[in-house]
C-alpha cells in the first residue's frame, strides 16, 4: 500500500485562490485541478461524477465565509457538501473523502499543500471501494 497515491480532484474559486499566479505554472503542480469562478458553481453532480470516474477524494476551495463575490456562493457549496457527504456515505464512500475549505490565497501556493495534506489523510483510508 506504500506506493498508493490517491487520485484527488481539486476545485478552487478563481476569486480567492491563485489569481496572482500563472494558471499554467500552478496546474503543472496540481493534478486534476479545476479552477472555477465561484465555488457555488460546483453542482453536486460534478462532485459525484468525480467519484464515479475513480476519484479517491474531492477538495473544494472557496472564498472566506461572508466574502463571496456573488454574496453567498461559498456558503451554498458548504451546504451542498454537508448533504453530499450524507449521500456518499449511503454509497459506501466515506464522508472524509469530500472536503471544503473556505479561505483565501492569491498566490495559490497553499493549493498544492492542501492537496498534499488531504492526499495524506486519504492514504489512511485507502483507495475508494470498488463497485
Amino acid at each position, binding site marked *: 500500500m506504500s506506493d498508493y497515491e490517491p487520485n484527488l480532484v481539486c476545485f478552487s474559486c478563481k476569486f480567492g485562490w491563485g489569481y496572482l499566479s500563472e494558471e499554467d505554472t500552478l496546474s503543472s503542480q496540481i493534478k486534476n485541478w479545476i479552477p472555477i469562478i465561484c465555488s457555488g458553481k460546483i453542482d453536486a453532480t460534478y462532485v459525484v461524477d468525480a467519484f464515479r470516474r475513480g476519484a479517491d477524494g474531492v477538495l473544494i476551495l472557496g472564498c472566506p465565509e461572508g466574502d463571496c463575490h456573488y454574496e453567498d456562493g461559498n456558503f451554498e457549496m458548504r451546504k451542498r457538501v*454537508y*448533504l453530499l457527504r*450524507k449521500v456518499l456515505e449511503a*454509497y459506501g464512500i466515506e464522508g472524509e473523502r469530500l472536503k471544503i475549505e473556505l479561505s483565501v490565497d492569491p498566490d495559490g501556493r497553499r493549493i498544492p499543500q492542501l492537496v498534499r495534506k488531504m492526499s495524506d489523510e486519504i492514504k489512511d483510508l485507502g483507495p*475508494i471501494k470498488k*463497485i
Partner: protein
Amino acid sequence: MTNKPKVAICWLGSCGGCDEAVVDLNEAILQVADAVEIILWPIAMDFKYHNIEAMGDNEITLSIINGHVRNSEQEEMAKLLRKKSQIVLALGSCACFGGTPGLANFRTKEDIFNWVYRDAPTVINPKGNYPQPEVQVGGRELTLPEFYEDVHTLDQVIDVDYYLPGCPPPPELILNAINAVLEEKLPPKGSTLTPHKPLCDTCPRNETKPDRLALKEIKRIHEVDADPNTCFLAQGILCLGPATRTGCGEACININIPCRGCFGPVEGVVDGGTKFISSLASILDAEDEEEVKRVVDTIDDLAGYLYRFSLPASLLRRRRVGEETNLKI
C-alpha cells in the same frame, strides 16, 4: 395468423402495477386489442415462452417491458424479447430506473440473503439453507434463477428504444405510446414519451410558491396537517417536484402527497438526486453550518429519499463494497 402488428407485454422484476396500468386503459384496450395481436402477456393471458423462442427475429413490432432485472430469468427474457422485437418500450420506473426495488442497491446481495434467510425475526431456518441456483434432489437437478449482485435497469441489460416512466405510468401516456407505434409517429430513438418539463412547471400549487423558498425546518408529510393548496416546499415538506419530470397528471399532489420522484429526472439530466441536492441546499435557510446540520439531520435516510425510484440509474449506481465484485451484467 393475422397481419396485425404483434405486441408483447412482459413483466420482469415488477409488482404488477404497470400491467394494471395497461388494464386501466379500460374501453380503449379493446381498440388496442383490435388493432394488434397480443402474443405475450404473462399476467393476463396464457402464452408459452417457447412460442416466442420459435418466432423470427424482429417479428414482434413492439415489446412493452416493465420491471427491473435482478436475476438470470429476467435477463434471459429481456434478451429474448429484444431479439424478437423491432421496438422495445421500457414501461414504468423499475424498467426505466430500477424503481423502488432498486433501493436494494444500497445493500449487498449477502446482506439481503442473511436478512431474508437467517436474521429476520420471522425466519426459522435451523439448517441454514440458502437458495441455490442448482440443487440435486433424488438424483435430479433442480434449478432456480440466479439472484444477481444488484438491481439493473432494462437499458443496462438490453438496448431500449423508448422510455415511459411512472409508478405506474398513467394509462393515457401508455395509449399515446402504443398509438405512436401504430401510426408510425415515434420521436427519435431513446426518447422518453412524456412531457420534458419538471413537475413544478405544471403543478397546480406553483402559484403559491414564494419567490424565494426558505426552509428553516424540514417536516415529513405524516407529521403535519399539510395545506391541500400550498406548495409543499413552502410548508417545509420535501417535495421532489423541482427535479422530477412531469407527465404524471400530478397524481400524488392532488391527494396531498408530495412528489417522490417516480417520473425520474427531467430531460437532459442524468442524476435527479444530485440535482435535488443542489436545489435543496439553496433553499435551506441557515445562518451557519451548525444550523445546516440541525435541519438536515432531521431527514431520515436522505439518500433513500433522493433515489427512491432511481438508484440503479444514478451516477454511482450502487453501494461500494470493497474489492471488485463479480458483476454478472
